[in-house]
C-alpha cells in the first residue's frame, strides 16, 4: 500500500488536484468543502464570475452525491455508501469529478437523461430548464431533475460521464464537469 502512495500523489499532482475526498458525504462535509474551495479561489485571485460558476457546479454535484448515496447502499450494504470527489484545474479549466455506485437498474435512465441534456443547444437548455422548473414535480429530496440541466447551462460544456459495470447489481458512475475560466 505504501509503495503506491507516491504514484497516487504524482497522479494528483499532474492533474493539479486542488481538493479530493473519498467517503460518506454528509451535510457538514459539503459545508466544509464549499468553504475550502471558496477561500482557495480567493487566494488564487479568481474572477468573481469564475468563482460563481465553480461554486454553483460544486453545490449541484456534491448535493447530487449527498442525495443519491443511499440508493445503492440500501440494496447492497453500507460499503457502497461512499463516493469520490475531486476538483482540479488544468489549462485554465476547472474539472469537477465525482464517482459513486449506482444500481444497474438505474443506469439506462440516468444515461438517457445525460444524453438528452448533452444534445441540447444553449437556447434549448433554457427552455428545458423552465419547463422542468414549472412542471410541478418535486422529488422528495427536492432535486426535481434540474441539477444536470443547470450545470450544462451554466458551464456551456457537455457533461462527461462513464458507467463501469461492477457486478450483477452495481455499476460505478463517474461524472466529469469542465468549467472554463471566465
Amino acid at each position, binding site marked *: 500500500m505504501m509503495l503506491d502512495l507516491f504514484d497516487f500523489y504524482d497522479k494528483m499532482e499532474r492533474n493539479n488536484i486542488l481538493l479530493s475526498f473519498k467517503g460518506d458525504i454528509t*451535510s457538514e462535509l*459539503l*459545508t466544509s468543502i*464549499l*468553504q475550502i474551495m471558496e477561500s482557495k479561489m480567493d487566494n488564487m485571485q479568481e474572477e*468573481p*464570475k469564475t468563482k*460563481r*460558476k465553480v*461554486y*454553483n457546479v460544486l*453545490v*449541484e454535484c456534491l*448535493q447530487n452525491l*449527498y*442525495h443519491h448515496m443511499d440508493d445503492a447502499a440500501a440494496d447492497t450494504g453500507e460499503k457502497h455508501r461512499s463516493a469520490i470527489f475531486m476538483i482540479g484545474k488544468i489549462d485554465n479549466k476547472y474539472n469537477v469529478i465525482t464517482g459513486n455506485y449506482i444500481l444497474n437498474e438505474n443506469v439506462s435512465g440516468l444515461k438517457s437523461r445525460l444524453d438528452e441534456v448533452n444534445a441540447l443547444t444553449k437556447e434549448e437548455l*433554457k427552455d428545458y*430548464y*423552465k419547463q422542468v*422548473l*414549472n412542471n410541478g414535480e*418535486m422529488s422528495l*429530496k*427536492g*432535486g*426535481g431533475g*434540474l*441539477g444536470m*440541466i*443547470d450545470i450544462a447551462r*451554466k458551464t456551456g460544456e457537455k457533461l462527461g460521464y462513464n458507467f463501469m459495470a461492477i457486478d450483477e447489481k452495481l455499476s460505478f458512475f463517474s461524472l466529469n464537469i469542465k468549467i472554463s475560466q471566465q
Partner: protein
Amino acid sequence: MEKFSIEGTPKTPTINFDMASGFLEIKGRSIPENSIEFYKPLVDSLEKYATSPKTATNVNIQLEYFNTSSSKCILDVFKKLEAIHKGGSAVTINWHYEEDDEDMLEAGEDYQAIINVPFKMVQVEE
C-alpha cells in the same frame, strides 16, 4: 398582522416578511440540502397573508447563490405572490443581481417568463 423572520446561515438566506407593511425580502445564499423544509414556513405565512393582504406588496430578492433544489421552492413562493397579485394587492418583485452575474439575471428572467407579476431587474455593484 405579524412579522416573520429567519436569520441567515452559510447555506440558507435571511428572510424578513413584514405583513403589516407588505414587505418581503430574501437575501443571501440558498443552498440547503432540504429546501422544501426550509421554505415551508414562508409559504405558510404567505398563505396567511393572502387572506388580508396590503394594497401593495413589495418583494426584494437578493440572492448570491441558489441551488436547483431551492429554485423550485422559490417558484412556489412566487406562485403564492402571483395569487396575491391576482387577489388585488399590487405585487412587485425586485430581482437583484450583481452587475457581471449574467446567470443570476437570466434566472430572474426565467421566473419573470413563468410568473404573472411585474418584475424589476435591479443591478447591484459588487
